[in-house]
């Protein structure tokens, strides 16, 4: 319990502290320290949960599923904060951001972490909504940090679209409350996930079905599911790159987490209701996921901005995960959980190298980034290997998880493996036609290497490689426990 | 139910209609009187409209050279339609023999017929004003009629009937009910009535200012008894709308059978309610300025929207279980 307290308090207090501290360099260092502390606390928390089992009280509910996301979130937040120090100080030195904006940036970074951790750990579906809306609010001013017309536009789109989308989710939450008020004793209990799951079979199936549609549309906007994805490439491409890394690597996961939590409830409610399709939630998620997967893959081909390119790749992978969670069953769920992890690690690593590559070339335009590997080999190799990993090359972890997902699809719905394979091919081609000239092309004259922190990228990619070669025992058990929680039965 | 062949009942119908026609100039005189008082002018006598009508009837009819039969026939048709419409609306008693045809849609249809001939007559002589008035009148009515029908539908959904007597009776039975649908229908009907009767803020009945006239422009060419009939028709139409609003929304006091006491109460009630309504109208017309012609469609779209919301809120909020 105290581990949880410290895990949540660290980013909250850190955010407040960073809002008050004027020194930019000091704040950047403190940001790293706070993130590191948060990461250590989350390891402590994970350890406690794995030893003592799920934590369940009036306010928080932590089981194997979300504690692993908490740890992942804190890990990526820590490495990103390390990258962010050199990156943002470079932006500060070339005068793109002022000292006040730097302060805003650092405070918002921690506030954003806090909202995500709150969303992950809370037991209350209403608070989950509040935290996810809070995550939007914490990041919207970061997206417009550079104050260019394009960035203001991106932030406005992000704000309005996510706000509108997530409003639907609140309506869905009200409907769940409505369905729960009858079967759960006490209105205070009626939104607690832990008590809802105990009464899942008694919940009114019709109301839960409608509620799920609203929740999927609402949180799906945040996941970036097509056709609700419009804000995502803009927000990723116009904000500062560390922000893109955490948005892609973490926020999308948290939104997906919210959908899965609700799906488990809805599955329980629909399982008994005769006239209703018992897999309504799964089918909806599968169709949204598959659509996002294919459409985003196609959009990869026509991108001109390197950050937009990889944000479409994020949509594609989130689509794949949504599809897999919708498919259900232990194998698909295990694969999807693994995919969540490796995607987070890889995508944040890629955004880190992308940020360095565009600082190096002074532009985000794909046509003007050329020969990165000659200018600064570390960045070039990072970008190349990261992209190989995200495209699903063996022996990286993404290959393993995609392989698991394909096998699961083959088992239950064999015909769907065809669009999945085609989609993977399209995405692969889309990434590499742009990547090749950027990494290997003719290097423009006069480009100088920049100061870049390389080890976060190395760490992430090493982890992904490790997960691809062999999943360590404790992690496999961990995933398996989460799989049991989500799909009902384990894999191991 | 009523015996359709009972002559005594038909006498009541005739008497009531006659009363209606006689009352109409008084009602419009009352409004004029109040408006003069409110605007610090010396009011004319309440009987002034009667005198005006008499004076017009005594005068010769002057016809334009190119006036057709239509021009001469229109006043009779318009006046007839309006009287027929008035006879359908219960003034004092419900369930008369004529209430079998006393359908709200018939009422709307009768007014539409009168308006059709009015517009034709306006164009018949071929003066610029007449044509302009007709075109404006048709514009306004094309927008007002859907709103009016929407109100009718809302009311008839509430009472499950389009028969006026049934509607009124339904209103009588649930006096203290606060219904959103009725509330919105009332507001919408008042707005329609204002537009249909060419009152402020849609049109100004007291003006002959060229650019703003609607109704007056169409009857500029009339004189003598033709004009008297036209005037009477428009006064009667105003009174009919007023009585309709009272019947549908504030029906308390109306007699359900022909007893002397009931009739007395009904007469007092309708007199009080009509004078109050006239007062409200006069107050409104004094307080509000006439709007620009281009704004009229917005005004009527508002009334249509209100009526539509009234109907929707009946379906959503009131009709279930």
């Amino acid at each position: 319990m105290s581990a949880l307290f410290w895990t949540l308090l660290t980013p909250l207090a850190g955010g407040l502290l960073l809002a008050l501290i004027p020194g930019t360099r000091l704040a950047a260092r403190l940001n790293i320290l706070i993130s590191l502390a948060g990461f250590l606390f989350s390891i402590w928390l994970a350890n406690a949960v794995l030893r003592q089992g799920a934590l369940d009280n009036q306010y928080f509910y932590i089981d194997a599923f979300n504690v692993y996301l908490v740890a992942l979130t804190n890990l990526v937040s820590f490495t990103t904060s390390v990258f962010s120090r050199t990156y943002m100080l470079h932006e500060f030195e070339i005068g793109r951001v002022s000292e006040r904006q730097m302060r805003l940036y650092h405070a918002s970074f921690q506030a954003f972490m806090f909202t995500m951790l709150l969303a992950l750990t809370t037991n209350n579906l209403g608070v989950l909504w509040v935290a996810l809306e809070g995550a939007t609010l914490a990041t919207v001013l970061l997206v417009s940090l550079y104050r260019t017309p394009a960035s203001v536009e991106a932030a406005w789109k992000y704000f309005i679209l996510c706000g509108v989308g997530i409003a639907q989710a609140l309506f869905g939450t009200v409907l769940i409350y409505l369905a729960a008020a009858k079967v759960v004793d006490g209105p205070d209990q009626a939104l607690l996930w832990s008590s809802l799951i105990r009464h899942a079979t008694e919940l009114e199936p019709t109301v839960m079905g409608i509620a799920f549609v609203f929740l999927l549309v609402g949180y799906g906007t945040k996941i970036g599911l097509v056709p609700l994805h419009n804000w995502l490439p803009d927000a990723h491409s116009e904000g500062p790159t560390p922000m893109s890394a955490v948005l892609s690597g973490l926020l999308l996961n948290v939104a997906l987490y919210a959908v899965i939590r609700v799906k488990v409830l809805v599955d329980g409610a629909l399982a008994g209701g005769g006239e209703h399709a018992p897999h309504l939630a799964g089918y909806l998620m599968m169709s949204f996921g598959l659509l996002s997967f294919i459409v985003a893959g196609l959009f990869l081909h026509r991108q001109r901005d390197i950050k937009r390119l990889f944000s479409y790749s994020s949509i594609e992978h989130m689509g794949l995960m949504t599809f897999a969670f919708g498919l259900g069953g232990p194998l698909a769920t295990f694969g999807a959980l693994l995919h969540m992890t490796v995607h987070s690690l890889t995508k944040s690593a890629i955004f880190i190298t992308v940020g360095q590559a565009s600082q190096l070339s002074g532009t985000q335009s794909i046509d003007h980034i050329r020969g990165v590997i000659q200018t600064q080999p570390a960045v070039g190799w990072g970008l190349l290997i990261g992209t190989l990993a995200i495209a699903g090359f063996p022996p990286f972890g993404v290959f393993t998880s995609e392989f698991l997902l394909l096998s699961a699809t083959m088992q239950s719905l064999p015909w769907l493996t065809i669009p999945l394979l085609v989609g993977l091919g399209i995405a692969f081609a889309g990434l590499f036609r742009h990547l090749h000239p950027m990494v290997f092309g003719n290097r423009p004259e006069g480009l100088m290497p920049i100061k870049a922190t390389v080890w976060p990228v190395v760490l992430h990619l090493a982890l992904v490689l490790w997960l691809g070669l062999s999943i360590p025992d404790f992690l496999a058990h961990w995933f398996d426990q989460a799989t049991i929680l989500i799909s009902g039965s384990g894999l191991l | 139910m009523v015996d359709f062949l009972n002559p005594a009942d038909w006498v009541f119908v005739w008497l009531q209609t006659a009363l209606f026609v006689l009352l109409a100039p008084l009602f419009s005189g009352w409004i004029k009187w109040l408006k003069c008082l409110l605007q610090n002018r010396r009011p004319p006598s309440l009987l002034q409209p009667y005198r005006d009508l008499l004076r017009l009837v005594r005068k010769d009819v002057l016809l334009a050279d190119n006036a057709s039969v239509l021009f001469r026939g229109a006043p009779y048709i318009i006046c007839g339609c309006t009287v027929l419409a008035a006879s359908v609306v219960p003034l004092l008693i419900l369930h008369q023999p004529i209430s079998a045809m006393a359908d709200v849609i018939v009422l709307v249809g009768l007014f539409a017929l009168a308006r059709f001939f009015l517009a034709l007559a306006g164009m018949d002589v071929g003066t610029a004003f007449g044509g302009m008035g007709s075109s404006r009148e048709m514009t306004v009515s094309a927008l007002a009629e859907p709103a009016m029908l929407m109100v009718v539908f809302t009311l008839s959904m509430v009472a499950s009937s389009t028969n006026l007597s049934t509607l009124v009776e339904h209103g009588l039975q649930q006096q203290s009910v606060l219904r959103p649908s009725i509330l919105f229908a009332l507001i919408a009907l008042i707005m329609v009535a204002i537009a249909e009767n060419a009152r402020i803020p849609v049109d100004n009945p007291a003006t002959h200012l060229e650019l703003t006239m609607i109704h007056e422009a169409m009857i500029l060419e009339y004189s003598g008894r033709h004009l008297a009939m036209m005037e009477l028709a428009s006064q009667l139409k105003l009174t009919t709308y007023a009585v309709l609003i009272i019947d549908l929304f504030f029906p308390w006091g109306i007699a359900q059978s022909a007893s002397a006491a009931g009739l007395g109460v009904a007469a007092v009630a309708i007199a009080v309610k009509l004078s109050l309504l006239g007062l409200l109208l006069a107050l409104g017309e004094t307080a509000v300025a006439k709007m620009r012609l281009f704004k009229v469609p917005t005004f009527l779209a508002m009334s249509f929207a209100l009526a539509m919301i009234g109907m929707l809120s009946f379906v959503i909020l009131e009709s279930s279980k």
Partner: protein
Amino acid sequence: MSGFLDTYSHLTLTEQAILTLAAMVLVSSFALLAQSRVVATIRLFALQGFLLVVVTALVALDTREYHLFYSAGLTLLLKVWFVPWLLTRQARRLGILRDLDSLLRPGVVLIAAGALVIFCYSVALPIQRFAESITRDAIAISLAVVLLSMLMLITRRKAITQVVGFMSMENGLFFGAVTATQGMPMVVELGVAFDVLIAAVVFGVFFFHIRDSIESLDVDMLNQLTEVDE
């Protein structure tokens, strides 16, 4: 002829008043959709908030769920006073208080709005069957307010009127929570109110960013980011 008397007339006067006010909330949504002047839009939004406060208070009285009075007070403070005040202030400072933001095709929008309400009704119909509260019929209205606000967001071009639409959507959700379930748990309501507060402040800051970057508050001019090649 007692067949006329349906169940509606058996409701108590408070309940009838709640439903009538619910319909008036819907009207206010329509009015927001049609209103073109910025200052009038903000006032209408405040009025809608006030209607919500009255509804909430009446529901609290009717169901004896007195914690709803806190929600009503919170709404009064936030949606009737603070947000309209902030929006008016920012609009005045930006000099757009008297501006117009008129609809392009009011007729089409009106028809679309009517169709949306019918759609909401059909969505809410199965839910209403399972709700026990007397105000369950208003669930469709709350959904309609949410969707009409979305329509307002789509049809408006000024940032400030879009924000009013955004906030009005929140009104619809709050209304849904009050009528369907007699409010949410207090912690959630406080959280949502906090989010609204922060959102209002962020929006207030944002107007200046937009104006500084495109020298206008017409969000139609925010059109650089697109997937369509020029």
